[in-house]
């Protein structure tokens, strides 16, 4: 497309009006040959023909003759911002001077914006530096807090551990005394027992709280006669309710001889925590435990006629160590935190309905598969058949314990390989593939934890259960991590060991079959 003549003329006029071009011509010696009249408007005055003009036009000083040059915007003697083009032509030099005020203003504004941007950027860098420093400080503080929390957990676990042994003794010896004393003393002794059991439950909560975030808190379901289970729980807590002269009722809508797959200890722990709380916060009336089983789910509702909970209580009831400000009742503030965590682990659920002065109902739902008599028989047969092909590696330096474990495990139909220390276990596993490993901790040559580390490093994926006379690693939970599948307390309860083997090896078999 080309512009019409009239438009071209118009544009030329506009351009000339805005740039106001002036010029002068010199020879190679920079002697003036001619100039336009309007050059004076730019302040270039006192010009003379055939005279060296480098004094008048200082931008010509040092100019390399014969070179075309566009100078950047400069200020003319009259203060106008001009652009200068030097155009050599044969032995002449043509110089064009144009008004560049608009360009200068644009450039000035651009420069100003660039300066502002640079300023902002510098400020941003400063803020970023401060932010990084704050982040670093926060990370440091966080680390300190984590360390403090770890120490606190360790301290609580240590103290709780030391409380447990004497408490267990108190309960054990008072149990033994129960039948040897008169009826009047029996009543007093039962109060000692119930209080000791209550203290033991608190201690267990403290220990579990220390294990909440570690793999040590494991779920081990087994077949449980659920009717007997609830009666035991009620009997366990009845003395505490009787002490407060309130009722503790059980309303069980369960079929006779109903057997369910649940982790008895953990479900009991949840119930004891909730029922204990209900009794604690009920001064008149009763606590009722309602339970039923429908479609793989065991539902337990604990209803009380107690003081109820405010909205704040309901919002904070699962926070560790939280105690309501609205009343003063003893406790660690851990029972509900642990209950919720255990329910999470079991895949269960918990609902709270409560109003101040109108009592509380806490409903828990536990996943619980039913085991029929025929199924139980079938499982036993299947397990004994599959057990014949399974090999258990026992790593134990105590020959007395090893002999007893070996006797039971072989009686259940498993093959057993026994070695005396971790080093021998690591070597044996290099050439054989056990289905499950039972590992003692304290052994000569190589201990259990080091052996497990070596086994995992050499790619051993088989389930490993630690056997320990102490409650495992309450003091060193970091040793457990995800490398072991659980622990078995010594003295070993052989029914627990058998169920652990059955459950774990069946799960491994099912995983392998999928």
């Amino acid at each position, binding site marked *: 497309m080309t512009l019409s003549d009239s438009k071209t003329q118009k544009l030329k006029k506009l351009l000339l009006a805005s740039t106001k071009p002036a010029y002068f011509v010199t020879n190679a010696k920079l002697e003036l040959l001619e100039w336009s009249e309007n050059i004076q408007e730019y302040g270039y005055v006192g010009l003379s023909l055939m005279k060296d003009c480098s004094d008048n036009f200082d931008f010509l000083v040092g100019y390399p003759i014969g070179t075309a040059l566009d100078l950047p915007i400069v200020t003319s003697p009259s203060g106008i911002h001009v652009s200068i083009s030097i155009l050599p032509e044969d032995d002449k030099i043509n110089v064009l001077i144009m008004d560049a005020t608009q360009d200068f203003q644009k450039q000035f504004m651009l420069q100003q914006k660039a300066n502002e941007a640079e300023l902002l950027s510098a400020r941003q860098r400063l803020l970023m530096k401060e932010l990084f420093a704050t982040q670093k400080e926060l990370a440091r503080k966080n680390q300190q807090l984590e360390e403090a929390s770890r120490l606190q957990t360790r301290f609580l676990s240590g103290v709780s*551990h030391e409380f447990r*042994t004497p408490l267990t*003794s108190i309960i054990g010896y008072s149990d033994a005394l129960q039948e040897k004393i008169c009826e009047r003393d029996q009543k007093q002794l039962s109060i000692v027992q119930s209080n000791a059991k209550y203290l033991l439950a608190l201690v267990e909560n403290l220990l579990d709280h220390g294990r909440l975030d570690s793999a040590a808190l494991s779920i081990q379901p087994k077949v449980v006669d659920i009717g007997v289970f609830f009666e035991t729980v009620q009997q366990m807590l009845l003395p505490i309710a009787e002490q407060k002269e309130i009722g503790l009722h059980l309303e069980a809508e369960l079929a006779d001889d109903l057997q369910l797959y649940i982790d008895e200890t953990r479900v009991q722990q949840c119930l004891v925590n909730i029922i204990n709380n209900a009794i604690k916060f009920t001064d008149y009336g009763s606590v009722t435990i309602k339970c039923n089983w429908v479609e793989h789910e065991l539902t337990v509702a604990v209803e009380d006629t107690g003081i109820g909970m405010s909205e704040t209580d309901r919002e904070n009831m699962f926070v560790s160590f939280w105690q309501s400000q609205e009343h003063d009742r003893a406790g660690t503030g851990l029972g509900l935190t642990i209950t919720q965590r255990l329910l999470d682990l079991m895949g269960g659920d918990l609902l709270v309905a409560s109003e101040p002065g109108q009592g509380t109902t806490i409903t828990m739902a536990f996943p619980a598969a039913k085991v029929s008599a025929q199924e139980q028989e079938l499982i036993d047969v299947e397990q004994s058949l599959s057990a014949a092909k399974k090999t258990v590696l026992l790593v134990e330096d105590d020959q*007395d314990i090893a*002999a*007893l474990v070996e006797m039971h495990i072989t*009686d259940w139909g498993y093959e057993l390989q026994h070695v005396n220390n971790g080093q021998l276990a690591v070597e044996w596993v290099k050439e054989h593939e056990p289905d499950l490993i039972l590992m003692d901790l304290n052994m000569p040559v190589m201990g259990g934890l080091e052996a497990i580390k070596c086994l995992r490093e050499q790619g051993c994926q088989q389930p490993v259960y630690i056997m320990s*006379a102490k409650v495992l690693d309450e003091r060193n939970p970091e040793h457990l991590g995800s490398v072991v599948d659980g622990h078995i307390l010594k*003295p070993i309860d052989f029914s627990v060991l058998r169920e652990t083997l059955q459950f774990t090896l069946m799960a491994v078999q099912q995983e392998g079959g999928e």
Partner: protein
Amino acid sequence: MMDLSERAQQLHDKYRQSLPEKCEQLQRSYDAALLDPASTEPLYQALHKLAGSAGMYGFEELSQLSSELLVMLDVSSDIGDNGAGDFAKVFAQLQLLLKNSAK
């Protein structure tokens, strides 16, 4: 071939017969720990083994007392320390029980 209860009884008898030896071993470890407070480890290991095995063979009280002594050692490894009186008393109980259980 022996059935399970016979085998269990045999193991139990064997364990009971080993108690005097365990008693002597404990005494040796205890004496060594009294002489040198830095060498309580053999005593700890012996108690640890007893705590684990005795309960499994039906000697619950032996297991319990061993566990109590382990806890004491955990609190202070120096048995000549402030808990010395308690430790000595419980240890004497354990020795007596070991001797009686062996009969």
